[in-house]
C-alpha cells in the first residue's frame, strides 16, 4: 500500500468517534468489521491485536481533542452539562475536523456549526451562542495581534472629522443577550478552587454551576473583550460605545462613526460631546486605538506604491 492511501485509511479509523464506553467502534469507516479493517494494515503483536493497537491512537485522538474543547469552552460545558457538551463536541469535530496546525484553532468554527445544528442547544440556544462567542473572543483577545497604540497625546494632534482610527485587532466587540461574562467568570473561578479529589466537592461545584446557569436572566449587554498587561478582561460598555467602536473598526471616519453611535441614543444632545471625549480618553488609555493600515489612512484609500 502506498503512503497516501495508507495514511488516509489510518486517519479515517483514528478520527472515527469512540463508543459510549470510550472504546474503538466495532464497525469500520464505510462498514465492515473494524478488526478486519485494522488487520489490513496494522500488525498484531504477542500482547495486542491489530484492533487494540489502532484503538490506542483512536482513543488518544479523542481524549486530546475533547480535553482541548473542555479547556477552551468551560462556559458552554456548564450550560449544556458535561455529557451533552461531550456529545456535541464529538459531532462538531466529526463534521469539522481540525484544519489548522495548531490545536488553538479547534473551536474556530463552533459558533457557525451550532447555528447550523441548533438541536444541540435547542433549549438554551441564545444563551449557548452568546457563551460560545464570548469564549472564542476570550481566545482571540489572549493572543491576538497588538499594533503600536495611539496615546491620548497623539489623538489631540489629529484632524478629527475625516480621520479614520483603527481598533486594536485583539479587541473583540460583542453584543450579547445574556450576562454570560459573569457566568464565565464564575465557572473559571470554580476551576481555580483547590481540588480535594472529593466527589462531594465535585458535586457541590456542579450544583453551583447548574444553579448559576438556571438563574441567568436575559439582559442585553455590550462587551469589549480586551487585554491589559497581557491579561484578558471583559469590559461592559454602553450601546453608544459599542456602535462607535464597531463603526470605527469597519473603517468609518470619526465623524461618521459618532453620527451612527447616537442615531438611536437616549443620551441627551447636550451630554454627547462629553460622552465622546470621555470614551475616547478611556479607550486611548487602554491602548485600544492604533493607526489604520497605510492604505486606508486619511479618510480615503491610498494607492499602494510599487
Amino acid at each position: 500500500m502506498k503512503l497516501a492511501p495508507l495514511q488516509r485509511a489510518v486517519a479515517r479509523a483514528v478520527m472515527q468517534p469512540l463508543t459510549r464506553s470510550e472504546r474503538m467502534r466495532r464497525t469500520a469507516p464505510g462498514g465492515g468489521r473494524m478488526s478486519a479493517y485494522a488487520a489490513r494494515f496494522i500488525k498484531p503483536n504477542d500482547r495486542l491485536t491489530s484492533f487494540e493497537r489502532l484503538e490506542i491512537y483512536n482513543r488518544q485522538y479523542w481524549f486530546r481533542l475533547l480535553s482541548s474543547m473542555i479547556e477552551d469552552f468551560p462556559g458552554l460545558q456548564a450550560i449544556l452539562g458535561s455529557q451533552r457538551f461531550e456529545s456535541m463536541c464529538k459531532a462538531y469535530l466529526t463534521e469539522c475536523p481540525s484544519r489548522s496546525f495548531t490545536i488553538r484553532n479547534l473551536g474556530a468554527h463552533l459558533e457557525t456549526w451550532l447555528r447550523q445544528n441548533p438541536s444541540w442547544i435547542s433549549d438554551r440556544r441564545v444563551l449557548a451562542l452568546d457563551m460560545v462567542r464570548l469564549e472564542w473572543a476570550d481566545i482571540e483577545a489572549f493572543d491576538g495581534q497588538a499594533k503600536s497604540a495611539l496615546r491620548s497625546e497623539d489623538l489631540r494632534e489629529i484632524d478629527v472629522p475625516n480621520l479614520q482610527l483603527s481598533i486594536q485587532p485583539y479587541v473583540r466587540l460583542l453584543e450579547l443577550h445574556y450576562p454570560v461574562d459573569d457566568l464565565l467568570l464564575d465557572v473559571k473561578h470554580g476551576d481555580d478552587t483547590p481540588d480535594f479529589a472529593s466527589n462531594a466537592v465535585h458535586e457541590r461545584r456542579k450544583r453551583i454551576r447548574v444553579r448559576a446557569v438556571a438563574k441567568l436572566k436575559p439582559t442585553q449587554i455590550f462587551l469589549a473583550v480586551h487585554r491589559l498587561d497581557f491579561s484578558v478582561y471583559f469590559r461592559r460598555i454602553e450601546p453608544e460605545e459599542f456602535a462607535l467602536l464597531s463603526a470605527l473598526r469597519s473603517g468609518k471616519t470619526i465623524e461618521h462613526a459618532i453620527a451612527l453611535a447616537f442615531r438611536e441614543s437616549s443620551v441627551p444632545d447636550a451630554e454627547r460631546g462629553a460622552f465622546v471625549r470621555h470614551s475616547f480618553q478611556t479607550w486611548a488609555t487602554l491602548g485600544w486605538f492604533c493607526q489604520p493600515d497605510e492604505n486606508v489612512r486619511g479618510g480615503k484609500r491610498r494607492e499602494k506604491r510599487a
Partner: protein
Amino acid sequence: MPGNRFNGFTDYGIGIGLRSPHYEHILSRKPVVDWFEIISENFMIDGGRPLQILDQILEQYKVVQHGVSMYFGSAEKSNREHLRRLKELVKRTNTPWLSDHLCWGSVDGRYTHDLLPMPYTFEAARLTAQKVREVRDFLEVPIAVENVSSYAEYHVSEMTEWEFLNEVVEQADCGILLDVNNIYVSSQNHNFNPLTYVNSVPAERVAQIHIAGHSKFKKYILDTHDHPVLDPVWRLYERAIQRAGHTATLLEWDDSIPSFEEVHREAMKANRFLADTTLEVAV
C-alpha cells in the same frame, strides 16, 4: 563530540522544556539553566502573553525550537501558513537548530494533532526526506528529526525503525534528535533490543537528545512525560552519550508537572553521564 553542523556547531549542555507553570519562577528567580526548549506552535501566534514571556526568556537564556505538527512524514505538501509563521518565530528566537518529529499526522488538510507512526518503506523515506529538505531550505536553519514512540507497526514496512531513520537522515542530510525514552517505549511495545537501535544511529548526526518518563500499562507502555526518567532510559542515554559524545540534552516533562526545582534536579542527573563518559569514536 562537541557541536556539529546539525545543531549549528553549538555546545549546549542540559536544557529544560519551557512550560507555563514555571514562567513565574524562571522570570523572578532567574535559575541557572543552559537553555530552554520551546514548543514552536505555542508561540506561532500574533501577540499576547506567550510572546511577551518568550521575549523575556530570550533576553536571558538560549532557546531552541521544537515542533509538534510539521509532520515531515505526511504524504501531503507542507502547510505554507505553518511554514510562514514558523519562519517568523525562527527569526525571533534565533534558534541554532530546529527539531520536529519523524511521523505523520495530517491527511488532506485535516489534522489529528498526534504523532502517528510511519510505515518504514523506501517510498515514505524518500517523500519524508524531500519534505525535510524543503523545510530546511525555506527556514534556513538546520533541522533535526526526532524518533517517536509508537504503539503500532504496519505490514507494509520494509525495514526496521532505525534503518528508516537512517535512510531519511541520509537522504535529507539532516540531524537527529535522539529520544532515548521513545526508543525504550517502542522497544517494549514492539519487542526489539533498544541498544541495537542506539548502536545503529549515525552518531555524527545526533544534534540533541531527549530524555523523559513514561507509564507502564498491562500490555503496553505509553510515552506520558509525567514521571522522572526511569533507569532503563538512563542506561540508553549513557550509551548514546558514549557514542555521540557531549550532546545537548533536554528533559521533557509535560504532564503532572512538578515544581521547577524538581524538574531541574531531574534534568541535572544527566550530568553524571555527560561528565563521566568517554567518547567512543563513532564509525
